[in-house]
């Protein structure tokens, strides 16, 4: 009888049933409703991620194609409001985050629908243009084709210089692929050209995707819900370990253009029109570009600014993971102060019970969990160690 009622629900009621907002609440001892405290879980996950990162050589100059599946399956509504909308939203976030972490890298967008693959944007360094292009093309129909998408990406990535890392990130909604030929051959081709393929599925595990990732050294994951999807896609923003054969030292020619004076007027090469103010001048051919990083349209020089390079630097020298201090170890008689070195907040929670905290193995300063996360994920400098200098 329950189902009959469920079927007779009004649309607005159904929104609640599907949203399941009550599941994120729990009752505490006194019967009050509280949101489920997920910080502990989040922190545990974050610690696990941190442990995995040893100091290895990483590919900092990445050429990444994002393949977005816009087949019929992307219109499914098991993600709210639809898989397609969620993908678009997260891709936007991801592209911004990606360029923030990898200023020297390039992204391109490919979509697949109706059994074919289309190149939406070519490899480029400007987040805005990619996002704009994707938002304008959000329509889904037909079947997805993994082979066509891979072939297209393969032909595009084959031309990039050898120091760059070739990567594909496929966001796959469909559960099948409609291919013109033997997909296995294409996978082998990608493997040969050292293209690292990763897939994030939105519905269920598919054998061929798993196979693809295993063969090419990528990762395969399936999203449980929107937040999990976000987490999975953001895992692709830090640079992956470099492939051994490519790990040879390579000199790359780069230009550091100067910012033009405000008020100067020049024709820029990116928009091919006269612009006032801002802009950068290529140090080799003196042509004007609007944004960094980019490649000079005239002489082909890679143009970046020094902060970009500095931002990429931390991937190579990550801060060592902080050691956890269990509350029992951290007794008040100890010489350590009971405040976080970062935010100066007390490390004691209510009732004078010590909370879990961490300490830097180098400078032995204590930090609270929030600062720990902030230091490792955003700051990339340990305040304790820096203050000793």
């Amino acid at each position, binding site marked *: 009888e329950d189902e009959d009622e469920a079927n007779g629900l009004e649309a607005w009621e159904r929104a609640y049933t599907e949203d399941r907002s009550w599941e994120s609440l729990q009752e505490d001892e006194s019967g009050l409703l509280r949101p489920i405290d997920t910080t502990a879980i989040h922190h545990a996950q974050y610690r696990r991620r941190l442990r995995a990162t040893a100091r290895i050589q990483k590919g900092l100059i990445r050429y990444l194609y994002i393949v977005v599946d816009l087949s019929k399956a992307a219109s499914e509504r098991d993600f709210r409001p639809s898989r397609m909308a969620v993908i678009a939203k997260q891709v936007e976030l991801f592209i911004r985050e990606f360029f923030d972490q990898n200023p020297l890298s390039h992204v391109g967008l490919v979509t697949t629908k109706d059994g074919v693959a289309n190149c939406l944007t070519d490899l480029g360094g400007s987040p805005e243009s990619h996002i704009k292009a994707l938002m304008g093309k959000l329509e889904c129909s037909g079947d997805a084709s993994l082979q066509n998408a891979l072939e297209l990406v393969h032909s595009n990535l084959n031309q990039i210089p050898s120091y760059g890392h070739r990567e594909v990130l496929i966001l796959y909604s469909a*559960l099948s692929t409609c291919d013109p030929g033997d997909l296995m051959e294409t996978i082998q081709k990608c493997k040969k050209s050292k293209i690292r393929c990763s897939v994030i599925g939105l519905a*269920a595990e598919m054998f*061929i995707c798993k196979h693809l990732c295993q063969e090419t050294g990528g990762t395969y994951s399936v999203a449980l819900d929107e937040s999990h999807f976000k987490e999975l896609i953001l895992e692709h923003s830090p640079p992956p370990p470099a492939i051994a054969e490519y790990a040879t030292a390579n000199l790359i020619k780069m230009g550091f253009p100067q910012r033009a004076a405000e008020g100067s007027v020049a024709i820029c090469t990116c928009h091919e029109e006269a612009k006032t103010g801002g802009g950068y001048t290529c140090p080799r051919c003196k042509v004007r570009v609007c944004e960094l990083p980019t490649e000079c349209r005239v002489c082909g020089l890679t143009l970046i600014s020094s902060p970009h390079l500095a931002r990429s630097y931390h991937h190579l020298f990550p801060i060592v993971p902080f050691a956890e201090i269990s509350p029992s170890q951290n007794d008040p008689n100890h010489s350590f102060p009971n405040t976080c070195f970062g935010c100066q907040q007390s490390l004691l929670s209510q009732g004078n019970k010590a909370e879990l905290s961490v300490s830097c193995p180098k400078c032995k300063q204590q930090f609270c969990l929030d600062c720990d996360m902030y230091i490792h994920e955003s700051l990339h400098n340990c305040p304790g160690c820096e203050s000793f200098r």
Partner: protein
Amino acid sequence: MKFKIEEVTVYFPYDNIYPEQYAYMIELKRTLDAKGHCLLEMPTGTGKTIALLSLITSYTLSKPQSPIKLIYCTRTVHEMEKTLAELRLLHDYMVKCIGPSAKMLALGLSSRKNLCVNNKVLAAENRDSVDAGCRKLTASWVRALAAENPDVPSCEFFEQYERAGSAAVLPPGVYTLQDLRTFGKEKGWCPYFLARHMVQFANVVVYSYQYLLDPKVAAIISKEMQKESVVVFDEAHNIDNVCIEALSVSVRRQTVDGARRNINRMRQEIDKFKATDAGRLRAEYNRLVEGLALRGDLPAADGWLANPALPDDILKEAVPGNIRKAEHFIQVLRRLVQYLEGRLETENVEKENPVSFVFSILNHAGIDQKTLKFCYDRLHSLMMTLEITDTDEFLHVQTICDFATLVGTYARGFSIIIEPFDERMPHIPDPVLQLCCHDASLAIKPVFERFQSVVITSGTLSPIDLYPRLLNFNPVVSRSFTMSLTRDCICPMVLTRGSDQLPVSTKFDMRSDLGVVRNYGRLLLEMASVVPDGIVCFFVSYSYMDGIVNSWNENGILKEIMQHKLVFIETQDVVETTLALDNYRKACDCGRGAIFFSVARGKVAEGIDFDRHYGRLVIMFGVPFQYTLSKILLARLEYLRETFQIKEGDFLTFDALRQAAQCVGRVIRSKADYGMMIFADKRYSRHDKRSKLPGWILSHLRDAHLNLSTDMALHIAREFLRKMAQPYDKTGGTGKKTLLSQEDLDKIVLEGSMNDMLY
């Protein structure tokens, strides 16, 4: 790893062991200690085979004063090879640990078709013609001729094997069929006869059920096996049917016609011999008068299928006088065939018991019971005398004699059923006379009596208390093990209603209902859109499958399904089905996705695995009851009720549910695997049906999943698939242990607390 179970040191070739494997070994060891029989149910994918092999061989090693032979029976050649491969791994490990004293001889034995290395013989297409081809080259009289006249063809492998005599032995080791062939080719010895010879000396023998259960074959192959043997029947959930088939015969019109041709030919041969070599026929007559054993000291190559009746039931007497002369025997056969043909012409279904059937043979054809009983052996002797080698041509008359001997020997547990046409196609006359055995315990009784321990094991033996009654024995241990899992990797569901909330079932009055057909179609369609890669569907029968696929085709559902996945169908043709399966696998591999339509009780349901992405979901449409109007089934049910007090309903449900469990069990073949199972019939939600499913399925069947409709099942499927796609920790992390290492085991042995680990 090495560990101790009581006083036995068990050698196990892997670094870790599942707790249920350990528990399984303990029970097995107790059975061996008690020298009794046992029934053990353990889900597939938990390593039954290696646990069995490892314990029994280790047990033998620990008791050198009374060596035990292991006879391992499998259903298919494929399983035989898999078992031998595991055994080799174990053997290598044991030799590494203990040294050469652990060496043993283990081999597989199969028919000539699988073992022959003579290309000329192997060219024949089926088993019977390979057998006949071999006989044409190796029969003693052919060889005698060949010795005189080099133009007569003979088999060089067999000749060399004979010449080597007692020197022809296999050195210790583990031999698969392939190894035997390679070894035979290398040495120039016939692998088939070598294997048959070595079976008596081997420590482990792996062969098919028939070699032990079918008296015709068992008397030749397994005669020499010592009493101190452990017999293992693996995948034994259908063992009662195998037993019954071993003692059942059916005679059709073609059989009768063929037998008549055979008799004529024998007649001609006799005339020819009379003219040329009358002495030979006389010699045979004299031999029969003296009542010499018919087979006894015949050379191995002449050995032919033995008497179809069980050894204890064969009379140790001389052949009766009225069939000692070849012409007389031919006359008797002729009358018998005549009589059977007359019976086949009936227009009604007839059912008779053997006693009255024998009596009516006596009245109408003048053949008494004793004569009937000797038919098979007499035919055998005659064919030897006439030096007939193309035995595959004489299958029909063999069937007739087979029938005569069985009907003359057994008065109880059998019945004779004559049907003028197949009930499903009443317009096509296809008369068949069947001698059906109803008592599975008959064929297996000698096995229980002869061997020290018999182990019956499978993934699905529930309800476990029914098997001892069906097979009429007292197990010392009967236990069902569950699977220890790190995550809930199976998701059984009972679907009782379609998307329109109306009940679905394949019950007779509902199965042709258009609403039910459509609901089943929608279910498959919706599932095809959320389940990746492979889906397997089982239907209750071929005719039902044909019907429902047809109507899906008509109302366009099939076309919609095809947009998601390709559809493959099992047919009664083996080659076609193999091809379909091949392409199904390909479609699953390349990501196109596929659905396989198959039939419960078919070939696919029994022997083919749909593990990993080849089967993420299995849908069982309906409850696979046997065709309840079949006369044979009715007769068997009656017999079971009268003899073993098993109620008809109980047996039918048991039989249907073990088939269903077998079907759905195809999807999960290891612990790392995952799969969903949908029982799509409202009858599964009833307790009496559901409770007969094996424990390892039941323990995952949640109450909330007992009464689902299509949309709810869809929701559950989505969630389940997402959950299963997440990476997981194989060892089970911090929770309960599902993989035991050496240290864990040592601890258990010290504390003696196995049960805490398991539950």
